[in-house]
């Protein structure tokens, strides 16, 4: 028969542990929804920047849904974007949101090269729970499939209309 003190101690420990577990629990559905929304909003922004070219018929933009699967999120559908300039294409393919040091990544492939768009925390001083509230897209170097061996930390440039135009020209070889 366990002593009263022992029972109390175990119960108290269990209650405290449940609180800690609840605080640390990740709402994976919210993570997935936020990620899908961030990609949709980014593509809205990009097609907005390109609107004059699309309306003049110089550029075609096609959005579609692709299947992704991540261990923590399971399978899900997310938007992809394809830009077509004459016979040349540039694709924006979401890779995932459960990553090292980033909240999301889109691999960009054009006729002359590749890049990665990374969704990063813009306020390093934000406490861990609030880091998802301060996010922005950055242009990074492509991350090779297979072995990842950067010689130096990749240079990350905030994604703005100007930096996007630079990326667009670089990857289309304009």
């Amino acid at each position, binding site marked *: 028969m366990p002593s009263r003190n022992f029972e109390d101690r175990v119960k108290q420990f269990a209650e405290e542990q449940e609180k800690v577990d609840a605080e640390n629990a990740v709402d994976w559905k919210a993570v997935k929804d936020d990620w899908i929304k961030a990609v949709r909003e980014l593509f809205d922004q990009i097609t907005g920047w390109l609107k004059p070219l699309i309306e003049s018929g110089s550029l075609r933009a096609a959005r579609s849904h692709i299947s992704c699967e991540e261990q923590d999120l399971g399978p899900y559908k997310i938007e992809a974007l394809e830009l077509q300039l004459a016979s040349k294409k540039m694709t924006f393919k979401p890779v995932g949101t459960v990553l*090292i040091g980033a909240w999301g990544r889109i691999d960009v492939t054009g006729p002359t090269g590749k890049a*990665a768009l990374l969704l990063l925390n813009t306020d390093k001083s934000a406490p861990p729970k609030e880091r998802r509230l301060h996010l922005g897209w950055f242009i990074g170097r492509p991350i090779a*499939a297979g*072995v*990842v061996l950067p010689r130096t930390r*990749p240079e990350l440039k905030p994604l703005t209309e100007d930096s996007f135009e630079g990326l667009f020209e670089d990857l289309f070889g304009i």
Partner: protein
Amino acid sequence: MLFDDPTSLEPEDIVHWFEVCAAGLECEEREAHRQLGTQGQLSSTLTEVLSVGATREEISDYFKACRRELEISALLMLTASAEARLRLDASIRMQNQDALGKRLKVLRGNARSEWMIPLYEDGIVDAWKAYIGSINLPVRADRARLLASVGRFKNLLGVRHWVAHGRYWRIQRGIEHFPPDVAAGVVEDLYIALRAAAGLEGLPSFA
């Protein structure tokens, strides 16, 4: 250091070292996976090798590649330790007047210095093969078994040369044919075969 004395270094010592290093790699991989999606700080070691935005699969691929490099290092150490044993044994054995000792003495005479005696082709291992071929064995299969154990060691040497010379040519067979425990088995079989062959003619045992 761990492996300073080639005369007491056994293949299983190298396999055990490999397993300790591989376990360390697994710890680092677990730590990297634990940091996925948390935006936590990676250790400074991992920050140097894992890109921001790396996925679970890319992390696994990186650590798989690290393990393969570790396997290659273990293979190099295994073959190098066998080479040391063969050369040390030969330097003593060439003073003997038996057939094997005489063959080794001729090899020494043809080389400008002891370390320049070839190891395999027309060298120490070929001298052993010639000696095994000359032993009067009642069962033919026994000779074939001894020679096969020596021949399997030659397969390891192809990989050893490729690694030791900086891998500047394309290797025909993949390194995956020789994980450390398999390579250690090949080296152990070589030692056993040479000891058995020496014993058949009453020669001093292989070192």
